[in-house]
C-alpha cells in the first residue's frame, strides 16, 4: 500500500478473513490488518478517534447486522469517512450488488477467486494499484472539518 496505515477488512467469515491475512503475509504487505466482522463493527472502529484511519477498506457484502451495502451508505455519507477507498471483495456476482456498490462510489469490485493462487494474484494487483494511487491525507480532512465547524458557528 502507499502508506503504512492499516488495511481494514470487513468480513464475517473467519476462514475468508484468514485467507486474506495469509495472502497479505505471503505478499509481504507490511500494513497491519484490522478485522471487523460486520459493517456495524467497522463503523464503530472508523468513528473511534483513538484508531488510526485505514488506507483502504476491503469489504465483504454478505454480512449479518450491517451488510456491505448498508456499510457503504453510512460510510459514504460521513464527511470524515467517505474519502477512504473501499474495495468490494465478495463471492456475489449479482449485478444489483455491483450497480449499488458503484453507485456508492466503491473503488473496486472484485469477485474472490476460489483458488488460493488466483486469490493471492488478485490481492497482489490490489496492493500494487493502491501503492501506485495517491491517497487523501486524513490530517487535511481533520483540518477541513475543523474549518467547516468554525464556519458553521
Amino acid at each position, binding site marked *: 500500500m502507499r502508506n503504512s496505515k492499516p488495511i481494514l477488512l470487513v468480513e464475517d467469515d473467519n476462514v475468508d478473513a484468514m485467507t486474506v491475512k495469509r495472502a497479505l503475509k505471503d505478499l509481504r504487505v507490511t500494513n497491519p490488518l484490522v478485522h471487523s466482522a460486520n459493517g456495524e463493527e467497522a463503523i464503530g472502529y472508523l468513528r473511534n478517534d483513538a484508531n488510526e484511519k485505514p488506507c483502504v477498506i476491503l469489504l465483504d457484502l454478505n454480512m449479518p447486522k450491517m451488510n456491505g451495502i448498508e456499510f457503504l451508505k453510512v460510510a*459514504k455519507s460521513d464527511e470524515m469517512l*467517505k*474519502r477512504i*477507498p473501499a474495495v468490494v471483495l465478495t463471492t456475489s*456476482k449479482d*449485478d444489483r450488488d*455491483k*450497480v449499488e456498490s*458503484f*453507485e456508492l*462510489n*466503491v*473503488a*473496486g*469490485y*472484485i*469477485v474472490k477467486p476460489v483458488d488460493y493462487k488466483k486469490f493471492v494474484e*488478485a490481492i497482489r*494487483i*490490489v496492493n*500494487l*494499484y493502491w501503492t*501506485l*494511487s*495517491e*491517497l*487523501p*491525507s486524513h490530517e*487535511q*480532512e481533520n483540518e*477541513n472539518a475543523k474549518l467547516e465547524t468554525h464556519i458553521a458557528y
Partner: protein
Amino acid sequence: MSRLKSILLLEDDVVDASTITQAIDDLKVKNELVHKTDGEQGLEYLRDPANEKPGLILLDLNMPKVNGIEFLQAIKADRRLKKIPVVVMTVSKYERDKFDTFGLGIAGYVVKPVDYATFLDSMNTIIQYWMLNDLVDREREVENAKL
C-alpha cells in the same frame, strides 16, 4: 473491466494523450480508447445515447472549459453516469486536489510519471487492476434504466 468496454480519456494535452495512447498500444490492451480534450466534450460523449458507456474514465484535472473537478461534480450527480469508475491522472500533487476528488468518489489518483518506462508500469498496474474488477454489464444497465 469488461474486455469489450471502452476507456474514456479526458486530457487536453496532446503529448500526454499520445503517451497514454502509446502505452495502451504497447500493453496490447484491446479495449477501445476514446479521447476527448475537455470535460465538456466528455460529458457530451457520455450523454449521447448513441455511444456505449465506457468501462473506465481516465481524467486529467487541469483542462479548459469544464475541468476535472467540475466534470466529476456533473457525472456524480447523474444517475446514469455516477457508477462509471474514474481514475484521476494528473501532474498535480496538491493535497487539496486529492481531498476534493476523493470526496467526489474517484477510484484512484495517479500522478503521471515523467519517464516513459515508469509511465508504462503505472498504466500496466491500472489496466491489470480494472481487468480484475467485475464491472456492470451494459445489458443489465439498460434493463435497470428501464426499471
